[in-house]
């Protein structure tokens, strides 16, 4: 569980997060959604400690990261897996080395043990036989999956994903979404996913936080979101023609 208590973040004059409070639950896929520029990535980077909010606290279980010393923060980070928007695989390393990296850095396992674990997670994300390839030699969807594998290899308690399916075709995007959800349930992880993809919202939105201009305007799950009267949310949800049509049909049926 991650609890966010009234965080504010500004860059220069501009306040990007204007006092956000919420809870991200354990064993659930928590989504942060909102329009481009609403502050989703900034919020995620605050959770990760890459940005320091000027005000407010972020609790991992009972303890606020702002109150942790450097040692404790480092320990916490070993429990965090992160899937970056572009994958952020190390291009100087092959797939196997990329996935093994957190193990090499933080465990004292033998090479063979590490290799076994690497192959285990690679097959978990349905990737086999690419161990020796380099990130530039595999497709974008495969890179995302390798990145997921790297994020979960050290058995994290928290998993963060920034737009896991941007730039992917709808089918691959769904595969990635489902993978994230399965992993979350399987290992009882607290997962936070930033997205603006309505498909993901429908597929895996177990707890959805809606941001607009740095303010949390709505929170609920993927059934609530189709029944809310909140104008900002309906604007966002029904901005695509497909969902507009669905909405019209729904309204007619009522």
């Amino acid at each position, binding site marked *: 569980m991650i609890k966010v208590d009234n965080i504010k973040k500004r860059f220069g004059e501009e306040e990007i997060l204007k006092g956000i409070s919420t809870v991200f639950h354990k064993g659930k896929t928590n989504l942060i959604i909102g329009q481009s520029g609403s502050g989703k990535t900034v919020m995620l*980077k605050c959770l*990760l400690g*890459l940005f320091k909010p000027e005000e407010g606290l972020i609790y991992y279980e009972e303890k606020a990261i702002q109150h942790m010393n*450097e040692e404790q*923060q*480092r*320990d*916490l*980070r*070993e429990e*965090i897996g*992160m899937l*970056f*928007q*572009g*994958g*952020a*695989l*190390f*291009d*100087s390393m092959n797939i196997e080395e990329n996935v093994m*990296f*957190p193990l*090499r*850095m*933080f465990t004292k396992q033998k090479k063979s043990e590490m290799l076994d674990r690497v192959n285990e997670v690679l097959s978990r994300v349905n990737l086999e036989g690419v161990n020796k390839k380099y990130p530039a030699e595999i497709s974008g969807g495969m890179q995302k999956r390798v990145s997921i594998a790297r994020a979960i290899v050290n058995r994290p308690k928290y998993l963060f994903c920034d737009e896991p399916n941007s730039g992917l075709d709808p089918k691959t995007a769904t595969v990635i979404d489902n993978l994230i959800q399965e992993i979350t349930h399987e290992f009882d992880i607290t997962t936070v996913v930033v997205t603006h993809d309505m498909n993901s919202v429908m597929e895996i939105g177990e707890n959805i936080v809606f941001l607009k201009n740095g303010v949390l305007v709505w929170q609920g799950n993927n059934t609530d979101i189709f029944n809310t009267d909140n104008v900002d949310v309906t604007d966002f949800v029904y901005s695509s023609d497909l969902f507009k049509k669905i909405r019209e049909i729904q309204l007619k049926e009522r």
Partner: protein
Amino acid sequence: MTGYIEDIGSYFLMLKRTFGSFTKRSVLKELILKEIDDLIIGSLGIVVFISFFVGGVISIQTALNVSNPIIPKSLIGFATRQSIILEFAPTFMSIIMAGKVGSFITSSIGSMRVTEQIDALEVMGINSLNYLVFPKIIALLCFPFVIALAMFIGICGGLLAGVYGGFITYTDFTAGLQEDFEPFHLVYAFIKTFVFAFILATVPSWQGYYMKGGALEVGKASTNSFVWTSVLIILANFIITQLLLS
């Protein structure tokens, strides 16, 4: 102006963090070996090539300009040695390396920045500056060997060009090489080299690490890095020469 002061501040802050919390030893060792391979071994070819021919040109130029029979021929060897040891090898080579090694460092760190690989390191709780910059600093401690090689090859180039070009005999040239030799000049050259090596490792890293933007900016940062690095090398050269030789 405040921009420059901030830049200088961020540079020293970077150095401080580079020597902060250390990466796991076994990993660091590997990284250092890789950097030695990339930065040092990978540069030897171009260093040998340039030194050889520039050494040759220095000796031919000197020969062509000493047509006066009163001046002893051995001057050619002497002048070649002096210009190679004092300036050509340490300074000129370092500036060429600012183009090769410097822009390589900036673009590799810069592209890690824009593709969030540096964020990925930080998220894992790794001190990314120590991970990325420290091995480069250590690898460039081998830079004096490169410069020593440049000196040797440069003088060989001068000798061969002088002798086979028919400007001077082997005996005259080697006599010139040994004339009025001041060991302190070598000390001076290698002190410079160490300073330049440090500039070469850190300034391009700093340019890459703190860059913002996308792939286009990586290119710009590399160019910037070359300008900064060579300007700093020239300035450091001036200051060190003032301090040590005058």
